[in-house]
Every structure is written in structure tokens, then in C-alpha cells.
């Protein structure tokens, strides 16, 4: 039997009260003055009457009633033990131990380790057990084994990580291990704090039929926690000084409001501290005054004093100056007056990102004009020839974007080596001036460049009238992002090396279309330029347990790029000191971020501390310690109609108490005893 509120057992000390009343020479308040105690003292009362318990049954009833009342207040319940596995023979057991960062709360990890040891208790002989640690990912810490020492070593070496809990990978790994086993009995022991955020119902997530599953819930009924769940930093570079304004959000899962000091540290130094009162089961915002910071990427941290769960008591971020997307617009030698006007004006309005636009006539284009460009726009000019063309081709292959609007240009031929573009040939001009123009009728909203317009009232490309466009023959539909109402391609994408080539088959000014005077024009060209120019939003932080794709975060690697466009080998150093080497040609390979804290990305030949900081925070969803019923998890994971049994070892005490609590019965017993005591007491009183 276990108790939900065992501290009430201290109330059993009250049992001494009736005994003391009977036995001890208790000092009474009323004092009667009497002439002499000469006769009273001669009566052998003290040695006999006072120390003898009269009405023993009455005393027993009173003590029993008191004990039952105390028991009822402790809210006792019977924790069901795991049912014994049916059948005989050796068993294959998978012990899944949650090592997400929420397991660092209080003594959860200690209880989890103890439960894992207990799960190994009956493994012997031909039995096999596999210890699996899981958080966002699941890893088998041991091979299937009956060697207790080996499992013990793995348990001793393990500790909670910084990743969030996900049951899916762990269950899949357990199912894989069990399916590969030839032992007759198979079971899974899931040891976790059973956070609701960890459990997403997946119909395909099943343990093999016949698998017995038991759970060990190490969570507490009431687990108050105060966490910093996010921080935002606005950077203002106006006036020649970089000033940032930071605001952080704090969440309180406890039942009591908390008043805490919140400290902002910038570039490793404490800058400000503000006091914030966070309401119970609510959140509050901590706002800091603007802080002047040095240029470049700056480390920032918002922290609160440590509580039982320390991982979420700090939020880290980096603040870096915005870097503009450098755009080169090449227009014909005899360009129309407004040929690049609309494009230039639209890009000049850009904020995130900002665009640095330079317009060049095709006949004035030189090699130096291409240096450092993220995007080159060929506005109704053919692909440059000669050294400039070769250089442009190289840059595109290395990642520079290319936006082509053919218009009236003649001689639109792709460079010979670009086989991927060879199948794309420009044709005649389609004139729709007589029937009031065509329209963009089909758009691939799943494409990153166009997904912005998927939402209602977010810009309607179909509203623009397109009077003329140049036919573009493509062998496949692949890469066609938009089509006109006659089915002709309007926007086509092709990859060349690391670069992206976009072809808009009409004009970028109002020569062939009224698109430039439509509201959708500005976000449209912004999206095309940002996408082709490989701009990505600056991430102030990443999440532990997730991955980092450097190929999609040019802002992290831009500072390492050499003048010739090449990239040196990089090193990512984790807070614990562990390093990962990143080859220049494998930037697109995802890097696992296991640790929370500030990582450092630097070139391999540069000193430590000179690199770009990368902030990694724990998943704030993990700070939500709300609980899912382990029985629900077991029911969903075991095969319907199969022989899988469900049981719970331990479990959340409050849940167990709700299901198997016996306090109402104890209370009824106490009341019955009290009634009996009253009847007996009255009877004895009448006798005396």
C-alpha cells in the first residue's frame, strides 16, 4: 500500500494523547484550595487508580478511530504490481528510459535509474534485456544481454540530456528489437515522466503482437516549474550604434505566483535585471531597456534563478547585423526608361531582408560587377558571353541566384555546359493584348518562394493582367512553379550547381503586364529575389535535439567565405567541448544539436573564440510538465485484440490514488468506530 500524502502519518502521534490522558499526571487548570490533603494523600489512588487504564475497549476504539482518520487523510492506495508474464521460457525485454531534459526535475532521474535496475532484476540465464535511452531520438545503450554489470555501467554513465521527449522513436526501436528476437516472451518497460507533449498518437506505432508492456511513471502530482520559454531581440542599427531591445517570456506551471529577478546578459556580461511576477499557471513578459552591443554576432542570455528544473531557467540567443542581399540587375544597352525602375524600387523597400540593388547596362558589364552578388537579374538581356559569362556561370554554380526575364531580348541561349537548362528553350511571344490579357492561373503554393501567397488575402497573382509572354518549352512539368491561363509556363525553376535559376517568362516592368502596379508585385519580387539569392531568415537560436543545416543558413557561414567564393573546413564546438568537423562540400549534411548552450562555428584554422556563436536552447514544449495517463499510452501501443497485457508499475501517485484510492472506505470505517465509541461511552457513563 502506498500513500499520496504520507506526511499525514505524523498525525499518528496523536494516538498518544488519549493514552497520556489516562496515564499521565496531567496538570489541570482548575485548582481547588483545600484545608489539608492529609486524608487524600492516605488514599492509595496515585499508584492504582491513575495508572490503570479503565475501559480499555473505549481507549482502543478511540485510538482506532484516530488512526483511521489519519489513514484517510494520507489517501492510501494500492499500486498494482506488474502482472507476471504468461507462459514459460526465456524473455526478451527492452527497457526504455526517458533521458529528456525534463527528467532532470527533482529526483525523477534517480527514480528512473532505480526503476531500470529493478526491471533488470528478473533477467537471468537465457533472458535478454536491451537498455534504450530515448529523448527526441532513441539509442540502444546495450546489446541484448543478461549481463547486469554491463547494463549497470550504461546506467551509471547516463544522465538527462537537453532534448525533448518523443515516444515514437523509442517505441519503433523497441519494436525493431523485439521483432528480431526469437525468444518466446517479449516485454517492454517504459520508464518516463509521461509528459503530454511527448505523446502524439500515431496509428502505425505498435508493438509486436504478444508483447507485454509495463510502465514506470516517475512524475509527481504537482511539479511546479518556472521557465524562460522564449526571447526576442530587435536590433536597431540607426545612428551608427547597434542597440537591441530584448523581451523574454516566462511561464509558471506552479499553483503559486512567483516574483523572480530576470537577468539579461549580453556578450557574456550582465546588462540588466528586472523583477517580474509570474501568475500561477500563467506567463509574464520581462522587458529590458535598449542595450548597446558591439557589431557582429553577439551572444545574449536571459536567465532566472535555478529551480528544480534548471535546464529551462535560461534562454540563449544571438543577435547579428542584417546582411543585405546584393542584387545586380543587367538591362539592355538601350533599355526602356522604366525597364528596371519597378524592380529597383520594389527591392529598395525590403526590410527582411534588405536588398542592395545595382543596375548595369549589358554593354557596361564587367567582371568586377559580379563579385559578391547573391542574385543576378538578366532583365531582357541574353546570357553574357565571354569572360563575364563564364564568371557568371561559375558563380551560379557556386550558389549565386539567377533571375531571367526574357522579354524582347533576342539570342536567348543558355551556356553550353548547363545541361539542366538545355531542355528549356524559349519560343515565340504570346500576345494577349486583344483579349484583355491573360493571367497566372496555376501556382505551386508548396514552393518556398510562393508559399507566402497560399494564405487567403496574402496576395493574388491572378489579379495581374499579363498581355504578353514568351513561350518556354520544357520537357517535364518539374520545376514549373506557375502557369498562365493557357497552360504556358509563367515561372520556372532550375538548379545549376548550388545555384538556382528562375525564369519569369513575361517582363519585370509594365511593358508586357500590369503586374508592377498590382499590390502583389512587391512581395512577389521580394520572394523571388530572397529565394534565388539564398537568403534565409536569421535564426537567433536553434533547438536542442534538432538538426542544423548550414546550407540553409548562409548567415552562419557568410563570414567564413573567402573572396574567391570558396569555403574553408569548419568546426562546430559544443558547450561540452566536443567538436564536429564540417567539410566545405558537406554543408548540407544535417548536424545533430544535442547540447543546449552556446556552440561556436569557426574555420578550422582560426583560434577558439573567433567564430560565430550559435545559440541552442532546450525545447520549450518540454517545460510543460502536464501528464498523460500511462495506461492510455500502453493501450495505444499494444496490438488491439492481441495478447499484450497492460499494467502499470508505480504510476503517477495521484492518478493511482484516483483509480485505486481507498480513503472513502477508511473514512467510513472511522465513522463507524466513532459511532461505536459514542454508544459504548454513553453506556459506561450511565453505569458510573
Amino acid at each position, binding site marked *: 500500500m502506498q500513500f499520496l500524502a504520507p506526511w499525514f502519518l505524523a498525525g499518528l502521534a496523536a494516538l498518544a494523547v488519549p493514552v497520556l490522558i489516562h496515564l499521565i*499526571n*496531567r*496538570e*489541570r487548570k*482548575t*485548582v*481547588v*484550595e*483545600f*484545608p*489539608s*490533603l*492529609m*486524608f*487524600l*494523600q*492516605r*488514599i492509595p*489512588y496515585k499508584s492504582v*487508580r*491513575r495508572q490503570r487504564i479503565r475501559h480499555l475497549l473505549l481507549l482502543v476504539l478511540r485510538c482506532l478511530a484516530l488512526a483511521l482518520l489519519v489513514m484517510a487523510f494520507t489517501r492510501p492506495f494500492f499500486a498494482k504490481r506488474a502482472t507476471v508474464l504468461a507462459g514459460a521460457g526465456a524473455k526478451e525485454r527492452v527497457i526504455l528510459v526517458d533521458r529528456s531534459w525534463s527528467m532532470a526535475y527533482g529526483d525523477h532521474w534517480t527514480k528512473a535509474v532505480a526503476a531500470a535496475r529493478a526491471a533488470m532484476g528478473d533477467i537471468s540465464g537465457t533472458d535478454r534485456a536491451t537498455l534504450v535511452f530515448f529523448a527526441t531520438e532513441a539509442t540502444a545503450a546495450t546489446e541484448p544481454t543478461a549481463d547486469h554489470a554491463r547494463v549497470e555501467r550504461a546506467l551509471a554513465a547516463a544522465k538527462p540530456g537537453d532534448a525533448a521527449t518523443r515516444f515514437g522513436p523509442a517505441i519503433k526501436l523497441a519494436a525493431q528489437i523485439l521483432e528480431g528476437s526469437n525468444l518466446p516472451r517479449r516485454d517492454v518497460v517504459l520508464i518516463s515522466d509521461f509528459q503530454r507533449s511527448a505523446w502524439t498518437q500515431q496509428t502505425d506505432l505498435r508493438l509486436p503482437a504478444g508483447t507485454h508492456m509495463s510502465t514506470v511513471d516517475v512524475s509527481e502530482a504537482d511539479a511546479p516549474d518556472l521557465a524562460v520559454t522564449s526571447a526576442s531581440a530587435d536590433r536597431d542599427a540607426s545612428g551608427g550604434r547597434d542597440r537591441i531591445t530584448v523581451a523574454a517570456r516566462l511561464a509558471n506551471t506552479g499553483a503559486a505566483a512567483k516574483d523572480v529577478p530576470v537577468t539579461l546578459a549580453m556578450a557574456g556580461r550582465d546588462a540588466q535585471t528586472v523583477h517580474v511576477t509570474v501568475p500561477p499557471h500563467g506567463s509574464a513578459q520581462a522587458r529590458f531597456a535598449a542595450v548597446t552591443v558591439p557589431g557582429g554576432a553577439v551572444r545574449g542570455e536571459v536567465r532566472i534563478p535555478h529551480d528544480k528544473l534548471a535546464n529551462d531557467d535560461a534562454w540563449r540567443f544571438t543577435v547579428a547585423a542584417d546582411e543585405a542581399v546584393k542584387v545586380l540587375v543587367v538591362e539592355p544597352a538601350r533599355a526602356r526608361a522604366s525597364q528596371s525602375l519597378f524592380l529597383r524600387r520594389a527591392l529598395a523597400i525590403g526590410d527582411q531582408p534588405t536588398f542592395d540593388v545595382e543596375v548595369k547596362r549589358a554593354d557596361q558589364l564587367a567582371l568586377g560587377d559580379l563579385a559578391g552578388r547573391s542574385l543576378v537579374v538578366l532583365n531582357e538581356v541574353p546570357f553574357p558571353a565571354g569572360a563575364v559569362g563564364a564568371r557568371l556561370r561559375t558563380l551560379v554554380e557556386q550558389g549565386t541566384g539567377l533571375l531571367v526575364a526574357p522579354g524582347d531580348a533576342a539570342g536567348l541561349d543558355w551556356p553550353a555546359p548547363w545541361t539542366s537548362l538545355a531542355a528549356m528553350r524559349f519560343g515565340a511571344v504570346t500576345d494577349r493584348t486583344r483579349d484583355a490579357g491573360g493571367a497566372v492561373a496555376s501556382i505551386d503554393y508548396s514552393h518556398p518562394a510562393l508559399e507566402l501567397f497560399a494564405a487567403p488575402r496574402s496576395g493574388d497573382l491572378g489579379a495581374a493582367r499579363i498581355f504578353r509572354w514568351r513561350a518556354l518549352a520544357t520537357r517535364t512539368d518539374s520545376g514549373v512553379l506557375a502557369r498562365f491561363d493557357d497552360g504556358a509556363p509563367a515561372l520556372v525553376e532550375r538548379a545549376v550547381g548550388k545555384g538556382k535559376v528562375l525564369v519569369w517568362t513575361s517582363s519585370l516592368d509594365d511593358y508586357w503586364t500590369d503586374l508592377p502596379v498590382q499590390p502583389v508585385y512587391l512581395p512577389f519580387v521580394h520572394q523571388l529575389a530572397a529565394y534565388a539569392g539564398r537568403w534565409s531568415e536569421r535564426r537567433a537560436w536553434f533547438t536542442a535535439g534538432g538538426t542544423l543545416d548550414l546550407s540553409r543558413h548562409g548567415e552562419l557561414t557568410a563570414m567564413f567565405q573567402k573572396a574567391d567564393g570558396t569555403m574553408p573546413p569548419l568546426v562546430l564546438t559544443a558547450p561540452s567541448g566536443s567538436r564536429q568537423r564540417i567539410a566545405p562540400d558537406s554543408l548540407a549534411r544535417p548536424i545533430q544539436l544535442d547540447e543546449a548552450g552556446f556552440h561556436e562555428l569557426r574555420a578550422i584554422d582560426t583560434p577558439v573564440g573567433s567564430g560565430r556563436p550559435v545559440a541552442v536552447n532546450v525545447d520549450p514544449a518540454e517545460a510543460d510538465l502536464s501528464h498523460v495517463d500511462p495506461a492510455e499510452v500502453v493501450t495505444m501501443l499494444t496490438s488491439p485484440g492481441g495478447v499484450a497485457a497492460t499494467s502499470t508499475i508505480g504510476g503517477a501517485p495521484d492518478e493511482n490514488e484516483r483509480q485505486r484510492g481507498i480513503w472513502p472506505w477508511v473514512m467510513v470505517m472511522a465513522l463507524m468506530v466513532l459511532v461505536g465509541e459514542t454508544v459504548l461511552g454513553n453506556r459506561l457513563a450511565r453505569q*458510573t
Partner: protein
Amino acid sequence: MTTASFLDPGVLARIGNLELLAKTVVEGFINGLHRSPHLGASTDFAEHRQYMPGDDIRRIDWRVYARTDRHYVKEFEADTNANLFTVLDVSRSMRYKGGGDDQPSAVSKLDYGCYLAASLAYFSSQQRDRVGLATIDGDVQEYVPCSAKHLQLTLHALQRASATAPGTDIKAERELLPPLRKLGESTRRRSIVVLISDLYEDPDAVMTALGHVRGKGNDLIVFHLLDRHELEFPFTEQSNFLDVETGARMPVIPDYLRAQYRALVKQHCDTLAKRSRDQRVDYALIDTSQPLDQALFTYLMSRQRMSRVR
């Protein structure tokens, strides 16, 4: 007002003047008698006795000598005045009064003793007896020698004894022996000695102390004053009982003790009565809730016996 009401201690407690109180008691008591108890200095012949050397030759009855040729002396009744010497115990225990619902106008044992002593003194003074007083509390506290003129002194001493607060030394011995021995040694004439006390002492010790007075030829009357609560122990609630003499405390459940307590008190009183009879001491147990007439009758009987002086 009835005769009995003159003797009710509850009524007497309202009379502030002790002389008036004594007069009220005595007159009320006497009015209730069928004959006058006043004996006076009579010269009535009692009997003849053979002359013994040392007898006053003036008391020889010469007529008898003429008839018988032998010397006889005449004896008369009450030809001398008696001494009434009252010994009043003023210890702390004497200040106890039970009270309660059944005894709303209770007086303390000390007050009752004062009324009694004053009444006896007044009564004796009316008989032209000499009156004296000693108050004792472990030792002689106040001493008024016997004299026909000491009624007022005696009454004042009683008034003070009643009004004076008890001493702070609650551990003092309350034995009767030291003061009674002292008083016995100081008594020169035969007297009627009246001891008014609650006698919270072992009977042997009490009788030893009384022996020092009785041994001088004094007639000794012992008024054993006890409150009704001391006799019946009517308490009901569990309480701490405090001995006012020694300061000792004792938790008591009265229901458990009442019967044994009563038996012990009765045994104590019976022992004192028996031992007193053996030593020719008049012993009277007085319940302070009762009128004073019992005490006065006891004295009267003793005084009558004393009047036959030989």
C-alpha cells in the same frame, strides 16, 4: 426572627460588631432554655467534709464539732468564679469555607470559631467568670490573660484574628503541641480551656498536646470545627487540590475518592472522640454550617460540672 436564626452562622456573619454578635447569640440561646443557666455566686451548702490539715480553720462547722466532737468543714457550691480560657487555631486551614450552591452563606471555620469564642466569652463574662484568649498558629500568636475585665480585649483579639491575613510562610508547622505546652505552663489557676481547631493532626499528637493542658487540672473542651465540604467531600469535577497549609498539589478525581475520604475523616473524628473521652476531655465535632447552639450546650454542660467546686 426565630431563636434559631440568632444562632445561624450565616445570619451572624452580617453582624459586624463581635460583642453585639456574642450578645445576640447568648441572649437568643438563653431565651430558648427552660431555666436560667445563671449560677451566680451562691453560698448554698453542699456537704461536710472531714477537716484535713491545711484547711482554713474558718471553714470548720463548729456546730457539728459541738455535736460530734470532730472537726468538719462546710463546702458550698460555686463559691468561686471560674476562668474561661479560649485557645483559637488561626492557621490557614481554618480560613477555609466550602460555599457552593448548597451552602451559599457559608462562613469560614475561623469566623465560626470567632463567633463561638466571642459568644463563650460573653456568656462567661455574664457569669462574672474571668475570660482570656490565645490564638495559635504553630505558636502562640496572641495572648490575652484571664481576667474579669478582659472581655473587650478578648473580643478585640478575636476581631483582629479574623481580619488579619494569614502569614506567607505556608510551610510552617501547624502542630498543636508547642503552643499548648507553652500555654499549659503559663496557666496558674484551674480554668475551663476551650480549644477551637480543625485538628488536622494525627490523633496521638493531638492528645499529647492536649495532655499538657489537661494535666494542670484544667477542664478541657475541644471544639473540632469542620466545614461541610470537609466532611462530605461533595466535589464533582477533576481538579488539582491545593493544600493551603503546605502548598502541596494533588490531582483528584473526587468521584473515585469520596467514599474513602469520608471513611478516613469519620475514623479520624471517632478516634479523637474516643481518646478524648479516655482523657476526660469534652470533645464536640462541629459542622460550621450548623447553628452555634450545639457548641453552647456543650459548654454549658461543662460549666455546670465545673460549678461544683470542692
